[in-house]
């Protein structure tokens, strides 16, 4: 087995504007849905190309799980993350398991309360779950808060796109809390940037 | 007095690498596992003399946690594997653990014929009324009108009456219990294991993760309450009208007859073969 990192930043050389993002958390935290939303924001609302993959299986029921999103301008070849430009991790186990191929200098966003051991020296720590609770009263919106943080920090998709994508997936009657969660994430990213 | 009171059920578990188990929080399959262990403990069987054979599904994952001779086979075929094992090692108590899809959809034919032959096996069917492992498709026991991922408009296929079917096919012992009535389940399983021939225990345990979620039936606890409220004992059921009874989960021993098990039947074959051989030689 070759070292997966051996191709370095090679991906950039192949697909135009290729950006690789990994979203990880515990089963039930909704990170797979977050991945789908992010990919939809890029593919449907931002007019880019996007591919989303995820880890399936019994372990998706409990334990850590992840979604991957690759975004680019034209054809996207390899559909999985080669060297993540960004990783969002909402639990310690998810962070431990999935931080391995974060690109050197890549962005790591973690839930400040849940992830205490960090694999890299610099990481953006946001109390994602707390923000979700504050903003919506529902811990389950943490995934949308996380998307807000990611988009706020990276601009990987436009704010309009992510909002449309979130609302497009929101079950009837939950539009408002999802909008609030997204805003909370985006705002906290703004705050982060100004730190 | 059972050994459990001296040394706990944990003696029957494989601790290494295996826990916590794979099931969703609150899943009744684990309760059935507990009942099975208590039944075996109560019967004071030697662990080396017990084999657990399962098919594929959430239920099929059960044997790996338990410290017996264990076999996780292919989907629907557990009874056929178990038949071979039992015939090769008649000394083993062979207990076959299946989901409803496993036992009655893809495995229906083996179920039929194991019962017909009165094969000396104990079958435990965890009936969660759905295909749990694959994410909630309807099974041959899904109640009418409940939704499933492949029955988005509600199931229209009449569910199979598991016990009645086993009886028609010829099973010597047929019982039904539920995970709410866990201690009763111990007893039913213990009775089944002691029986000569084919014995069946159906353990009702609705899957909250798929069936429950899709049909908005609430938490694991809510579904426990559903079972509690919807089930009656056989003796209570006998006093009910046919119609009322149809809506209930009837618990208890539905059949218990003495019929020679397959091994004893096959002894006749061996006897006749040897007799014929002797008469040819003589």
């Amino acid at each position, binding site marked *: 087995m070759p070292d997966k990192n051996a191709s370095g930043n090679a991906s950039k050389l192949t697909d135009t504007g290729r950006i690789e993002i990994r979203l990880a958390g515990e089963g039930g935290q909704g990170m797979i849905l977050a991945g789908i939303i992010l990919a939809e924001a890029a593919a449907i609302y931002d007019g880019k190309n996007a591919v989303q993959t995820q880890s399936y299986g019994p372990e998706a029921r409990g334990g850590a799980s992840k979604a991957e999103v690759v975004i680019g301008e034209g054809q996207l070849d390899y559909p999985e993350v080669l060297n993540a430009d960004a990783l969002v991790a909402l639990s310690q186990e998810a962070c431990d398991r999935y931080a391995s191929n974060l690109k050197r200098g890549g962005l790591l966003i973690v839930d400040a309360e849940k992830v205490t051991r960090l694999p890299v020296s610099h990481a953006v720590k946001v109390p994602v779950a707390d923000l979700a609770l504050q903003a919506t009263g529902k811990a389950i919106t943490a995934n949308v808060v996380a998307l807000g943080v990611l988009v706020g920090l990276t601009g990987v998709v436009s704010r309009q796109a992510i909002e449309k994508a979130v609302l497009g997936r929101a079950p009837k009657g939950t539009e408002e809390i999802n909008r609030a969660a997204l805003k909370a994430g985006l705002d906290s990213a703004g705050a982060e940037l100004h730190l | 007095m059972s050994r459990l009171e001296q040394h706990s059920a*944990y003696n029957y578990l494989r601790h290494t690498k295996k826990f916590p188990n794979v099931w969703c929080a609150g*899943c009744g399959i684990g*309760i059935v596992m507990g009942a099975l262990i208590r039944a075996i403990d109560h019967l004071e069987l030697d662990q080396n003399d017990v084999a657990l054979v399962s098919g594929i599904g959430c239920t099929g994952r059960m044997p790996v946690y338990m410290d017996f001779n264990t076999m996780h086979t292919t989907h629907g075929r557990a009874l056929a594997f178990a038949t071979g094992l039992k015939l090769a090692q008649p000394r083993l108590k062979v207990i076959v653990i299946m989901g409803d899809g496993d036992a009655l959809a893809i495995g229906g034919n083996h179920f039929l014929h194991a019962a017909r032959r009165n094969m000396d096996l104990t079958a435990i069917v965890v009936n969660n009324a759905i295909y749990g492992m694959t994410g909630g498709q309807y099974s041959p026991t899904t109640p009418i009108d409940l939704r499933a991922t492949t029955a988005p408009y509600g199931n229209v296929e009449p569910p199979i009456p598991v016990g009645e079917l086993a009886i028609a096919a010829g099973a010597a012992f047929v019982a039904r219990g539920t995970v709410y009535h866990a201690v009763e389940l111990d007893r039913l399983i213990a009775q089944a294991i002691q029986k000569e021939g084919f014995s069946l225990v159906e353990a009702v345990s609705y899957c909250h993760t798929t069936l429950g979620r899709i049909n908005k039936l609430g938490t694991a606890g809510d579904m426990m309450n559903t079972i509690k409220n919807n089930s009656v004992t056989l003796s209570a059921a006998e006093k009910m009208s046919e119609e009322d009874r149809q809506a209930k989960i009837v618990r208890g021993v539905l059949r218990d007859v003495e019929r020679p098990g397959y091994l004893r039947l096959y002894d006749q074959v061996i006897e006749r073969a040897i007799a014929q051989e002797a008469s040819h030689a003589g």
Partner: protein
Amino acid sequence: MTENDLQPAPAAAATARSKSGPRGRVIVFGSWCKGCRLCVDFCPKHVLALDENDHPYPANPEACNACRWCETHCPDLAIVVKPVQ
């Protein structure tokens, strides 16, 4: 493994002491428990509550009558009840 029973809830202990009949000591294996709440919700004596890790602990230990409902119904075999003399 968390043996929560090592932290008895004093208030509950106080009320139950007056009771007669069998009593039980509840042991929970935290690393196996998945926090499904079945034991908490169905304990006939309302002995149990969930802690901050979503594991049950005997919030009201003295009320336990060692009926073993929790032990026989824990899907994760994460509870043992020891009768107390």
